[in-house]
């Protein structure tokens, strides 16, 4: 009999519909896998009851011969940045340890309304700040992947959605939610050999998602393949009047619209993405991707995005600036941690609470953000960064005159070992070099697995599309997926 935990979203959904297995069997199988994978530290909280309740509803609907909801009986993982009513939501911080939201985020509500169940809340970099999942208060997430040749070094699952990537790669859940501010869906997807898409800014509501950087944060799905991403995104997306930046547009039928035929499409190759010291394997994979695209019928054109090198510095002004303000609400007054030293006044309570509640990386970014917004520096840093952001967006607009999609590597390297970069914040930030520009421009972008490096670790390719063209991005991703034939999976050691 099939191990249902090997299946993806579409296969589980279809299997429940055709009664190949019950939703309860699926839920139980994943619940067992989750409970046995503590070594990966992917979950902060496990919620088997939630998954079982959704499974029961799906099975009842099957028994009653009702039309099943789009995700009926599909158990998923929920990044612990989405507020879930009655279930602890921490953003992987000490600050929010024990915080029980009295509300459900719009994206998670959409998923539950589509029939999905929740296996648990997934670990992440604290407040989604990090690229290796080493900043969580609840400990590092360990990638299920290991380098070949008996190297047992614990590897980074990428970040910030590292719990999501690890859980999917280790088949603890068929899909999960992620959020992407500068690459937090795409880079972990690339590191773990799965797919993930960050839709156009505004597609998924930010309401109820713990904010990092408001003008960049965007939720999206992570799953085994492109089709599963399309199914998940259809459920997650949609206009939300409670988010003033939400796009008031209908949700396209992305799954039904999947089409990997690239004939008549132009794929842009941005020359500025050939960065110094990029491993040859990444370059080779990129070339491989280009060849696959040609094979799919696309025309390849070289394009220029001249301001690419300024994207990361601009991002590391804008994101910290927004975060320094967004995280001001964590003050120990209304919820979360309060640290009140003997005899402390209000302002001292704030300082003590925030010192105890935030991890080093969060503090670092709050400090940078506070500094760049402070009197006398605002124009030189923040205003200049937002101007550069305009130029970066213009670069993309010019590129769209010449091509339909851009193809780039997702990350400049394969997964690195935990601890390898955590001592040097700048080296860590450089991980996002290929993902940040499209975040700054709010564009849809996805990572799909392309192959393995010499150590047997996954590498990802990124497709960036025009605003609102998630369909095109998914289609291009599918064209690569079909040609890459990526079937590698980590051997279970946990």
């Amino acid at each position, binding site marked *: 009999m099939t191990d249902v935990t090997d299946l993806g979203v579409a296969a589980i959904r279809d299997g429940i519909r055709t009664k190949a297995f019950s939703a309860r069997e699926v839920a139980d199988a994943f619940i067992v896998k989750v409970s046995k994978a503590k070594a990966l530290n992917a979950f902060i909280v496990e919620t088997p009851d939630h998954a079982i309740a959704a499974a029961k509803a799906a099975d009842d609907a099957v028994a009653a011969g009702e039309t099943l909801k789009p995700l009926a009986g599909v158990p998923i993982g929920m990044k612990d940045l989405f507020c879930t009513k009655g279930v602890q939501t921490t953003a992987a911080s000490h600050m929010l340890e024990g915080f029980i939201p009295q509300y459900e985020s719009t994206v998670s509500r959409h998923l539950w309304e589509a029939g999905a169940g929740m296996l648990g809340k997934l670990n992440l970099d604290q407040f989604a700040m990090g690229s290796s999942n080493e900043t969580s208060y609840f400990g590092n997430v360990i990638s299920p992947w290991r380098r070949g040749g008996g190297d047992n070094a614990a590897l980074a699952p990428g970040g910030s959605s590292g719990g999501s990537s690890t859980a999917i790669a280790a088949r603890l859940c068929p899909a999960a939610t992620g959020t992407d501010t500068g690459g937090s869906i795409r880079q972990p997807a690339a590191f773990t050999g799965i797919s993930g898409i960050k839709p156009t800014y*505004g597609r998924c509501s930010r309401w109820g998602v713990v904010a990092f950087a408001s003008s960049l944060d965007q939720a999206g799905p992570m799953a085994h393949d492109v089709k599963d991403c399309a199914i998940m995104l259809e459920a997650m997306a949609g206009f939300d009047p409670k988010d003033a930046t939400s796009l008031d547009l209908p949700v396209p039928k992305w799954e039904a619209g999947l089409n990997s035929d690239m004939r008549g499409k132009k794929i842009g190759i941005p020359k500025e993405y050939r960065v110094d010291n990029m491993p040859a394997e990444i370059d080779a994979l990129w070339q491989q991707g280009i060849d696959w695209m040609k094979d799919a019928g696309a025309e390849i054109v070289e394009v220029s995005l001249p301001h690419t090198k300024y994207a990361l510095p*601009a991002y590391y002004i804008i994101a910290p600036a927004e975060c320094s303000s967004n995280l001001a609400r964590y003050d120990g*007054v209304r*919820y979360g941690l309060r640290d009140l030293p003997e005899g402390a006044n209000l302002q001292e309570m704030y300082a003590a609470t925030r010192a105890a509640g935030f991890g080093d990386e969060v503090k670092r970014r709050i400090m940078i953000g506070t500094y760049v917004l402070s009197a006398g520096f605002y124009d030189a840093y923040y205003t200049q960064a937002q101007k550069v952001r305009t130029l970066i967006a213009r670069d993309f607009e010019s590129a769209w005159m010449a091509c339909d999609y851009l193809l780039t590597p997702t990350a400049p390297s394969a997964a690195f070992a935990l601890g390898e970069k955590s001592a040097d914040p700048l080296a860590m930030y450089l991980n996002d070099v290929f993902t940040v520009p499209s975040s700054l*421009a709010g564009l849809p972008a996805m990572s799909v697995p392309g192959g393995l490096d010499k150590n047997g670790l996954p590498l990802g390719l990124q497709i960036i599309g025009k605003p609102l063209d998630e369909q095109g991005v998914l289609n291009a991703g599918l064209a690569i997926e079909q040609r890459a034939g990526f079937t590698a999976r980590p051997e279970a050691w946990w």
Partner: protein
Amino acid sequence: MSVDQNIVRKVASLARIAITDEEAERLTPELNNILGWVEQLGEVDTSSVEPMTAVIPNTLRLRDDVVTEGDQRDAVLANAPQGEHGFFTVPKVVE
């Protein structure tokens, strides 16, 4: 522009994050490193460029003047570290 420990302490104070002397000492080169790196933005000629205001072309929607929430004190106070008589409480403030 580079920051010294005094500026680091001042920024930490503005951000209401208590830091020890050791932390101030450690953070100073870290922040200088990051700030020095982001300052390369100064190279870009932006004299005729407007700062970005909306990531994706979209205008601000306004909602109707209708009461849709309220009367949910229990939910509002549910996670309060300290509260009594329907209030949040904080160390006494002298104005």
